[in-house]
């Protein structure tokens, strides 16, 4: 089987197959082998990689997959041939430029730091949401221009609710 994986920012092609309880995987020239067995309780596997024991849990996340291992979470993006085609037609890249800031959890908006038309840069805080007795500054991950502010201060917001929309920054606008 064949697919593309983005791990720590690098996208690589991966082919793999299984022989009984052996998993054989190849990616840019490297060959990985492991004994695997599914464990009860969620999508969890025990892997023995050249004898080294790892328990990994796979769960769908907002963006692709999250692999949990020894308390650490490793985000992994997986693309199928079909999806990849779609992206290379450009749609994917253009879409990736814009951005929507959403509430990570239910809470109350205590401050909005931007208005439509403002230019914002990656890492800048645009909204403050209070939840679990903490005030949390929500930041943007790309440069851009605020296109919409969808909530007002003191508004109660639900998890995942869109708060602010950004248009691509002029710099990135060739798409």
């Amino acid at each position, binding site marked *: *089987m064949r*697919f593309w*994986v983005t*791990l720590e920012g690098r996208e690589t092609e*991966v082919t*793999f197959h*299984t022989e009984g309880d052996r*998993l054989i*995987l190849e*990616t840019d020239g490297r060959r*990985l082998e*492991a004994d695997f067995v599914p464990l009860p*309780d*969620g999508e969890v*596997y025990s*892997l023995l*990689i050249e004898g*080294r024991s*790892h*328990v*990994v849990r*796979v*769960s769908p996340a907002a*963006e692709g*997959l999250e*692999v*949990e*291992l*020894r*308390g*650490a*979470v*490793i985000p*992994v*993006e*997986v*693309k*199928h041939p*079909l*999806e990849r085609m*779609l*992206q290379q037609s450009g*749609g*994917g890249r253009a*879409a*990736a430029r814009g951005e929507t800031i959403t509430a*990570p*959890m*239910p*809470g109350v908006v*205590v401050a909005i730091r931007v208005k439509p038309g403002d230019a914002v840069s990656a890492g800048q805080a645009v909204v403050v949401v*209070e*939840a*679990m*007795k*903490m*005030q*949390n*500054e929500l*930041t943007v991950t790309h440069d851009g221009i605020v296109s919409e502010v969808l909530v007002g201060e003191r508004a109660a917001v639900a998890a995942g609710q869109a708060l602010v929309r950004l248009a691509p920054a002029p710099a990135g606008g060739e798409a």
Partner: protein
Amino acid sequence: MARLNRVLIANRGEIAVRIIRTLRETGRTSIALFSEPDRTALHVLMADEAYAIGPGPSKDSYLNLERVIETAKRVRADAIHPGYGFFAENATFARACAAAGIVFIGPSPETIDALGDKLMARKAALAAGVPVVPGSPGPLETRDEVKAFAREIGYPLMLKAAAGGGGKGMRVVRSDAELDAAWDLTRGEALAAFGDARVFVERYIERPRHVEAQILADHTGRVAFLGERECSVQRRHQKLLEETPSPAFDAETRRAFGEAACRVAQQVGYLSAGTVEFILDEQRRFYFLEVNTRLQVEHPVTEMVTGLDLVAEQLRVAEGQELSFGDHPPEPRGWSMEARIIAEDPARNFMPSVGAIERVRFPQGPGVRNDSGVYRGYEVPVFYDSLLAKLVVWGSDREQARLRLVRALDEFVLEGPHHNIAFHAWLALHPEFAAGNLSTRFLEEHWKPGALKPGPEATSAALLAAALHERAERQRVQVGAARDDAGARSTWKWSGVERGGR
């Protein structure tokens, strides 16, 4: 005074569970309260009895004074244990208990009043001959007042909510500009958290350690010092990891520190368990900060080295008995650390996280104690704080305790909400932490979000896991396709497109 047989716990979560344990071990009836979303909370399942007290928001349930007192009377509670937070340091509540003929487990309302107000507490400390940090004589009303004060004693300054505590509503400002940015936010948080926007100001000590004294006092006037706890590792003034003893202390510092703490307690006629908080500067001088008139989140580390049950001692004192150890508190033995396991995402600026506990396996084995209020399948409610568990370890020395903590964290399986287990492992393995070089600025100086980047072996495992997931998904799809060509297949395709469109 009569034995307290029926004890109501005006709290929730891990501390309610912890109090239930001592009540059961001492043959008392434990009575829990629960808000609507807490109907399935562990403290409700574990208590002997449990009663509803209203909707999720604290003010409508756990902070609904009339309802709590009325319930306690109706169910014939002999006493109320407030835990920490909620009514733990509320003199009005303590008075309402007394008026209802119910014993409040804690110090007297007068003591709570005297120590709850930071300015009165400072006066008490000064009267007891205990040094305090230079600060504003009272709350300041405008930024200009603060700037004037800053010109007196200089930046950096600490803004502190007059009604605050537990690190809530505190901010450091290093310049007039920072002050302008922080002033409204601080007063806003103060108002939201304590219904009191008043803020005062004191000198901020660079690279301070936070060290506190655990004390126990009974009605004979006896005040026992049970050793210090170092709680320097903090984020946004929230303690993350506590330990006892403090790596900064020698015997002489400990003696002077213990005496100072006891003097403050005696000054206000303290009763029951309490914590006297100090900060320690780089010259190891300590300054009185405040007294927490309650059981502390981090009390277990003291229990680990002394073998005492602090809740049991509180019950003795509330019954008018003397402390179990009289004038001879047990010699502390070994070293203990507590890691607060919190529902937050270290990779995303420690953003609080919620959701159901999908899978949990607590660490076990030698020298490990768990205190938690969660279980598999439990939904962490959004209304309350995000402490999921306290992992406490004991070792014969600091190094064994530290390495045991690393081992236990490695063994801890907790899935569902994001959490800070991997962060604690990073912390416990950090050379500066290992060397005991701590200060409240530890994270500021050493933490980088990239710190949790997985190693090559983990990356390989993740890659293999992703492949197994793909394999499983395709098997599901094939099964689906076989069963129903349109359905299953198109779902897969759509999810594909959706992901592609990101």
